[in-house]
């Protein structure tokens, strides 16, 4: 009998269906414990101590007697060594309570529609599923990945619905940045449409939205001149803000409503149950050295299980991309591939007399050529700060194009120089944006959750605004989620709600602007004017996007190298100086988070055929070709510089670079971006 309770030290053996006792196997994979079992195990919790330096196979499991507001207690996991355990508690009692535990858990699972355990009988044949058994597990009703505008809007809306209907759902938001807002970067001219719906009292509650748009200019730049064009934007009622600041405020609001936000934890793995339904995510192991060995402060990742998962990781989210591939979400609705642009931005503090709060400027033309879609923006915030940046589409053809250097060139334009002179740079950063619009929205619902925000891609390209649609998508997903958890409806209602909302109407009207630029700058501008003044989206057809971004790059021998001027250190800067201003920091001794699917491709394809475009489009100089001892150029990946923009994941010609999430808490530290 004693033998039954001993689990062998190897974790893999727990998964074998015919291990010594099916009873013990099922116990170790039980995720929902009722209160009786937790009180039983409470006695032994004092002697099972945390042991961070222990070897992995002997990793003790924690026991949590506490409960979430919804009554879900944290997972109870039995420790590995049972000898002392069983001597404390009567042997027979453990056996019988555990048995009962199993059955009751199954029943509660069925009621809630979780489907955590695939039940094959009480005794014998109870198989465990794919999740690692040695990780601690925490359970929530809803787990949201990413504390950005979409994720926080969803969290806030969920809690609001809970209050209205008098129920409670536990909501957890994980964020890979060191704090909420650290990885948030955006222009940003904010349309408060979604915020008015979510938190109508935002003004009274002191949201950091205080600079209304005061003027709106649109310039066509040539090398030396700036030609004023009629402004295609209507920014009346909009505000110039720092999105990072707004998201921090939203984080505060969410916490006030009872949302649990955990910054510094990166969701790196998706957890599935035996039916291939998503049941949660797992965070990164922390404290792993560069070579993969465990450091002194090694900490195994934690599993966060949710009845519903919402992925709001931002543009080209790593988990969202995996989900879209696995469940073929783009094929479901016959959508096109997503197209992207790279945005690089700086916040400057300029001289007093030059600052006009609320002034909005957009430019087109120089320094980009006729075939490359893109432009720049310059917004005046408050406190003498301005946001200046460039957006370069990632389907550019010439592999010698360097978006960062184009930005530096832009700052030397005669129309821009007078504004920046005498000023200093506060922060620098970069991100990719979705330009696919209506044509590229994937089916956003998957078994176990949904994708919201820029991970799906709701940016309105002609308006260059995506914050309001991201927030609205979060709110709609929250409403659908609440329906699923509280009323038993299906998550597909999210998709229906999206199509009936103003997001759809807006994106449908804006769908033909961007694809028209595939034919060149002038045709694109002509189409924009036509759409804006006359058609307003009423064309009976929808233009398609060109090739996917990574396929659009021409081989180097067909293109001419571009000579970029050296930075002058006053208006333009080199990458290391700019990077320093992004407060980017990663724990140095960790495995590189940028993975090469085939390590030979950079030297065999990227460098000879495409002249190493990754060494040019990366705004953080992560990819460098350094001569080794034999004087051959080898790719060196400076992963600690990474700004988490995902440009490499998008633009690499052979899609060889895979961006995975590094240890939580690393990455840029934006505060006013």
């Amino acid at each position: 009998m004693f033998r039954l309770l001993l689990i062998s030290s190897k974790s893999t053996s727990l998964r074998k269906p015919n291990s010594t006792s099916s009873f013990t196997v099922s116990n170790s994979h039980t995720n929902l414990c009722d209160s009786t079992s937790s009180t039983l195990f409470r006695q032994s919790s004092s002697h099972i101590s945390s042991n961070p330096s222990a070897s992995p196979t002997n990793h003790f499991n924690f026991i949590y007697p506490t409960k979430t507001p919804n009554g879900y207690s944290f997972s109870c996991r039995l420790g590995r060594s049972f000898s002392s355990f069983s001597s404390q508690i009567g042997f027979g009692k453990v056996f019988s309570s555990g048995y009962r535990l199993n059955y009751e858990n199954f029943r509660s699972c069925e009621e809630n529609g979780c489907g955590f355990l695939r039940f094959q009988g009480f005794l014998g044949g109870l198989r465990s599923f794919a999740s690692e058994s040695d990780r601690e597990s925490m359970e929530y009703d809803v787990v949201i990945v990413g504390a950005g505008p979409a994720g926080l809007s969803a969290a806030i809306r969920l809690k609001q619905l809970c209050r209205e209907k008098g129920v409670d759902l536990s909501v957890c938001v994980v964020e890979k940045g060191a704090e909420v807002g650290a990885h948030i970067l955006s222009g940003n001219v904010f349309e408060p449409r979604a915020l008015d719906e979510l938190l109508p009292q935002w003004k009274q509650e002191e949201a950091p939205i205080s600079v209304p748009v005061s003027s709106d200019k649109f310039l066509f730049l040539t090398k030396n001149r700036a030609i004023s064009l009629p402004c295609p934007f209507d920014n009346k009622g909009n505000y110039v803000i720092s999105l990072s600041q707004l998201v921090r405020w939203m984080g505060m609001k969410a916490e006030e409503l009872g949302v649990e936000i955990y910054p510094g934890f990166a969701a790196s793995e998706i957890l599935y149950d035996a039916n291939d339904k998503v049941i949660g995510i797992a965070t990164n192991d922390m404290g792993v050295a560069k070579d993969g060995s465990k450091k002194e402060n090694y900490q195994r990742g934690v599993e966060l299980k949710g009845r519903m998962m919402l992925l709001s990781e931002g543009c080209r989210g790593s988990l969202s991309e995996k989900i879209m591939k696995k469940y073929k979400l783009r094929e479901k609705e016959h959508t096109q591939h997503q197209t992207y642009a790279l945005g690089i931005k700086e916040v400057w503090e300029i001289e007093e007399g030059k600052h006009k709060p609320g002034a909005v400027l957009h430019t087109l033309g120089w320094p980009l050529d006729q075939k490359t879609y893109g432009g720049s923006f310059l917004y005046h915030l408050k406190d003498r700060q301005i946001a200046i940046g460039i957006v370069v589409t990632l389907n550019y053809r010439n592999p010698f194009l360097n978006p960062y250097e184009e930005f530096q060139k832009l700052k030397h334009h005669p129309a821009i120089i007078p504004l920046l002179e005498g000023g200093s740079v506060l922060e620098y950063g970069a991100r990719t944006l979705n330009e696919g619009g209506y044509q590229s929205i994937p089916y956003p619902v998957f078994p176990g959750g949904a994708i919201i925000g820029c991970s799906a891609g709701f940016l309105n390209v002609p308006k260059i605004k995506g914050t309001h649609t991201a927030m609205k998508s979060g709110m709609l997903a929250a409403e659908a989620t609440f329906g699923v958890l509280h009323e038993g409806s299906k998550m597909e209602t999210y998709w229906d709600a999206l199509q009936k909302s103003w997001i759809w109407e807006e994106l449908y009207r804006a769908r033909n602007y961007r694809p028209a630029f595939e034919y060149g700058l002038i045709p694109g501008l002509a189409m924009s004017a036509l759409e804006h003044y006359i058609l307003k989206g009423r064309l009976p057809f929808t233009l398609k996007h060109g090739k996917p971004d990574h396929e659009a790059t021409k081989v180097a021998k067909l293109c001419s190298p571009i000579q970029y001027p050296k930075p002058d250190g006053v208006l333009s800067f080199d990458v290391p100086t700019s990077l320093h201003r992004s407060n980017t920091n990663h724990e140095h001794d960790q495995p590189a988070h940028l993975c090469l699917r085939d390590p030979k491709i950079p030297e065999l394809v990227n460098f000879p055929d495409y002249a190493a475009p990754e060494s040019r489009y990366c705004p953080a100089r992560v990819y460098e070709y350094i001569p080794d001892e034999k004087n051959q150029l080898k790719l060196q990946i400076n992963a600690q510089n990474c700004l988490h923009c995902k440009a490499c994941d998008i633009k690499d010609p052979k899609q060889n670079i895979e961006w995975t999430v590094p240890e939580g808490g690393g990455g840029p530290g934006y505060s006013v971006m």
Partner: protein
Amino acid sequence: MKIMVAVKRVVDYAVKIRVKADKTGVETQNVKMSMNPFCEIALEEALRIKESGLASEVVAVSMGPAQCVDTLRTGLAMGADRGIHVEATGALYPLSVAKLLKALVEVEKPGLLILGKQAIDDDCNQTGQMVAGLLGWPQGTFASKVVLDKENQVATVDREVDGGLETLSLDLPAVITTDLRLNQPRYATLPNIMKAKSKVIKKFTPQELNVEIKSDLEVVQVTEPPKRKAGVIVSSVDELLDKLKNEAHVI
């Protein structure tokens, strides 16, 4: 035995700081704040001593505005049992902190007081030494190794000094300030962060502790260091000596 650890909320080490426009200090608005790295090391050491069974309780102490509670919660998430927050607005210089710590030591009566050797915002390296002086306790500063002997109530501390390593034997109760090489602080795990929410943080004010916060120092001005000038290539050793003598005035 109780261990008290003093932690300070400072600007995060990865943030690039700027001087405020009015030169009264460094810009701390909208800037990420976290626990001083040396304080993390101090807390880690206290936790290890507790886990080895030589201490019964670890109490984390922080002084400053209301947001210090966040730092204390991080400390509690790492494993401290209780927190104490001394609410004080305005600048707190090391002597005031030392006096407050002395008052708290008289309340809590710990057997060991561990602090970080210095804070990364002011680099003072004074609080530990001052509090030891006020309490009349032995001090082992710049500790790179701490070994406790509970029976004899003695702590053996290896100190990192300019000449190398110095080993001291301190009678408990004692003050230890930690240096970088002492240990690698643990990560606060998600479950621990959750549990920390329910741990107790007691609040005190300086008046309750009978400590008057007055400063003998006044910050007159804070400016950025002069920008580094470009290097100059000299053509001969004589020219180098000439420049060192007449321009740099170092010889």
